[in-house]
């Protein structure tokens, strides 16, 4: 089954959760969903991340038993595993606006839905939800997700994959998105601004990976974004 169908079937399976105020699809599937008609050609992973504000954790928890086709992983109950190949894995993550830095990452302990509350996710803001085949999909504003991917320091394969998500967002960004990203960049601490710039240079020099978007044709767009962020006058 093609990936787009599995992604949308999964989102349909968890749509009651997606209708809770503040819940957002975050992470690697957002570029796929933001493509025209959620074309999902920018596949970089086989799971979907769902951001849950800690303020609505209890409400989401109440809904979970009604979901069909997925069940929590015994080893890591914030991960819900598909019971059929027609669906993909769902990862629930916590969002806490009082935390910004990765150094503030913590675990919201809960017997039903424990969450890794990852600081930089609080950079994300909701965009108007998109509608795909009648499915309500709450997505974040592109700029916030882009900066979140670029402030997040990761290593190895996972780190490169996250940077390729940032690449997917850069290919989809409008002038307004880049302007918003620059505004967000200026609001960051010097350390996080440096991390953004550093990650852009890494992205610019990444080798292509099988099954992932080739970063080489987008090198100029990456360089332009770096130049734009540096032109804000923030730390050189």
């Amino acid at each position, binding site marked *: 089954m093609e990936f787009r169908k599995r992604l949308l079937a999964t989102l349909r399976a968890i749509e009651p959760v997606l209708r809770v105020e503040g819940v957002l699809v975050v992470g690697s599937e957002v570029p796929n969903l933001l493509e025209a008609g959620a074309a999902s050609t920018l596949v970089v992973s086989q799971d979907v991340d769902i951001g849950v504000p800690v303020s609505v954790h209890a409400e989401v928890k109440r809904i979970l038993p009604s979901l069909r086709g997925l069940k929590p992983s015994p080893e890591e109950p914030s991960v819900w595993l598909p019971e059929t190949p027609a669906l993909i894995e769902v990862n629930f993550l916590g969002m806490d606006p009082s935390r910004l830095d990765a150094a503030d*990452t913590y675990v919201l302990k809960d017997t039903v839905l424990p969450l890794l509350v990852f600081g930089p996710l609080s950079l994300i803001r909701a965009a108007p939800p998109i509608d795909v085949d009648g499915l309500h999909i709450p997505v974040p504003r592109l700029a916030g997700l882009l900066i979140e991917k670029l402030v997040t320091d990761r290593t190895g394969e996972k780190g490169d994959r996250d940077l390729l998500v940032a690449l997917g967002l850069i290919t989809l960004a409008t002038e307004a998105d880049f302007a918003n990203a620059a505004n967000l960049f200026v609001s960051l601490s010097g350390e996080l601004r440096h991390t953004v710039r550093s990650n852009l240079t890494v992205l610019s020099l990444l080798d292509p990976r099988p099954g992932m978007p080739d970063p080489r044709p987008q090198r100029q767009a990456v360089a332009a974004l770096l130049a734009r962020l540096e032109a804000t006058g923030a730390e050189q």
Partner: protein
Amino acid sequence: MTTVALERRAREARSRAAVRAWQYRQRHHAHGVWFGLRRILTQAAEAYAIDAVEAGALLDEGMLAEPVGSKLEPPKTVIFVPQARLATLVSRRALPLRLGGEMLEARCIALVRW
């Protein structure tokens, strides 16, 4: 149900943040050199290894060596060169724009800006 895996991932995220903070403090020292090199390579559409004689000629013409090159050991001469002048460099050999062996081994590098 257990949160062991989540606790481990949270610890890893906090550890990476601590490393990042150290790297930021080191940005004007040795660690920052790699960022500096990546940054100028990001600004380049093309990169070429050239020989020392032609690199010297470019400097004699008034082109500037990028400061980050002198901070590497052994030092590199890295120069942004106009496309037209690049075409006259007989020793030029295209380098892939990544921090791979060829780039790191080249002593003199000509870059073309976007």
